[in-house]
């Protein structure tokens, strides 16, 4: 029963992809709709700005629409779309400047962050302060390093998937992630000085 349901979902996705690639805008809308929140949150994580994330995702979706007829393997639609969104977010960070300070600092966001911190580590009172320091340190990193950290820590993408998506050997991805983490540590030290 479950297998049949999965096949049915897969078939519907294939149909939507086929129709969207043939110029059906409603089908494209149906494909993007359920993915929009995930893409947006990923872009927010990279850009640290809701306004920039909005621009990035709009650009990414338009680009995906334009290029969809060239996507040869429908099974790769999600990783392809994510890669375009990551590129768009990186592009926005690059354009707006690497030193941009995080904009998600409204009271509501701060309150939400505090609540999350308490939920995860109720015994550690300095977690929220540490999170803020890490976020500021993250804002000091270049767009490529940000994207790698977000893919791994926020999206939870396994290293093997990142390697496949970027076309890099697994060892290279591990090395880059280790460098990214070191860069974050250095930025964090600079923040706390």
């Amino acid at each position: 029963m479950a297998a049949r349901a999965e096949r049915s979902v897969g078939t519907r996705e294939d149909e939507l992809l086929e129709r969207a690639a043939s110029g059906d805008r409603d089908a494209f809308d149906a494909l993007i709709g359920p993915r929009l929140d995930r893409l947006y949150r990923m872009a927010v994580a990279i850009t640290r700005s809701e306004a920039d994330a909005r621009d990035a995702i709009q650009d990414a979706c338009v680009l995906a629409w334009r290029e969809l007829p060239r996507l040869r393997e429908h099974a790769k639609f999600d990783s392809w779309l994510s890669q375009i969104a990551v590129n768009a977010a990186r592009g926005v960070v690059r354009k707006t400047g690497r030193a941009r300070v995080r904009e998600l600092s409204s009271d509501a966001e701060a309150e939400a962050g505090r609540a999350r911190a308490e939920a995860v580590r109720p015994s550690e009172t300095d977690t929220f302060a540490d999170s803020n320091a890490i976020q500021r340190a993250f804002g000091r990193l270049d767009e490529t390093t940000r994207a790698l950290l977000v893919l791994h820590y926020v999206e939870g993408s396994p290293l093997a998937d990142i390697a496949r998506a970027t076309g890099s050997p697994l060892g290279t991805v591990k090395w880059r992630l280790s460098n990214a983490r070191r860069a974050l540590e250095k930025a964090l030290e600079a923040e706390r000085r």
Partner: protein
Amino acid sequence: MSIPMRLTDDAIRLALTPAPEIRAPAGLADGIRMAVAATPQRRRSILGFAPSPWTRIALRLALVGLLVFALVGLLLVVGSKHPPSTLPTTNTYHGGPERNGVMPGPGPTGVPSVEWHHDLQGPIGAWSPAVVEGVVFVADQGGFITAIDELTGRQLWQKNVGAPINSGLTVASGVVIVGDDAGLIHGIEVTTGGERWLYRARAAVHSAAAIVDGVAWIGSLDGALYALDVQSGTPRWPVPAISAGPISRAIAASGGFIYVGSGGATPGDVATLQAYDASTGLLRWAEPLEPGNTSTPSVSSGRVFVTGGLDATSTLAHDLYAFDASTGETAWPAPFHARTGKSLLIGAVADGLVFVESTDGTMYVVDAATGSLDWTAEIHSTQAPSAGVVGGTIYVTSDDRKVHAFDIPSHQEWGGSWPFAIDGAPGSPTIVDGRIIIGTSYGQVISITGAGSSSSAASSP
């Protein structure tokens, strides 16, 4: 005193994950719908469906078979001696075998931005990437050849050839052809990056190959012009043609001729422009140039253009020459020269104009018919500026880390967000599918696209 915090995976995850209540804003989906409604989709293949890789290979083989069959039939029926054809694509440095910088385009308009960048293993010099069927191929001075998806910037494969590469590469019939500083000429599989064949020259190869009828013409600093079978690397003739001096720039091809500039930066070296018959390998004509290295020849409308005196220590003005492509007769009463004592490089030849860029920071636009100066523009480059033309626009790269765009009819530089600043000194641009794709001295390939209204961004200064 603050206690140093431990940077755990959980701490990073917690800090970087946006709050769960963050959702795509209500207007975003509508904005996307409107933008999509205004955006034409790329045309799908003539098959009407997206074929699998194996289907594509089979279809290509069938298509190649049909083409070969048709060509053989045509030759048998007509029995004519038409000059061999060349590939009018961006499969090599400077747009194609004629090396005139005319690009398929379209180029980006509106507000430019970096769509993606990809880190390589070494810097890229003045050469341009090749773009074939959605794949960007580039060679770097770290000795690597990299294939990258044009749309996403994702790396498809990377090949270490073992020695620095100081030239552009050429893609033809499923093979990437490039020479290295160790004097090895490599034939590499387009799809996998695997080595198909190797040929050893007697000195470093800094010359991008020109392909004519399945033969790769490529020069070496040993002065030899090698003609190698694209598929096997086998020499077309037992002995290569030998120039009077080193060949340090790309080979051009057009109308059944192969054009080669040779020279040398050492006093006493002889500099010439030579034309060879592509079907026999025999020299058709040669013309002397000023001492120094010779630029890549550029061919347009039956004329071949070249500059001399490169890399030579001289305070003399360097020259831009024009010759009849078939006979080698000089086309202008005298060569064009800028009175600055700086090197001249051909950025592009299009619309009856030669865009010649000087390392004094000026682009001189010369009438291709007469050799007289038409107009000038400041580009602020002192090393190796280059350019590409799409329609009425010339995109110029300059080593002050900028990409300029000029409207050719009005001579005006685009304003707004142009010139566009990038990281690193750019090489020569390849302009396809709304993108400018450039390698940089920082060891990156960058794809620049444009967005928004072209008229607002392309405002006059």
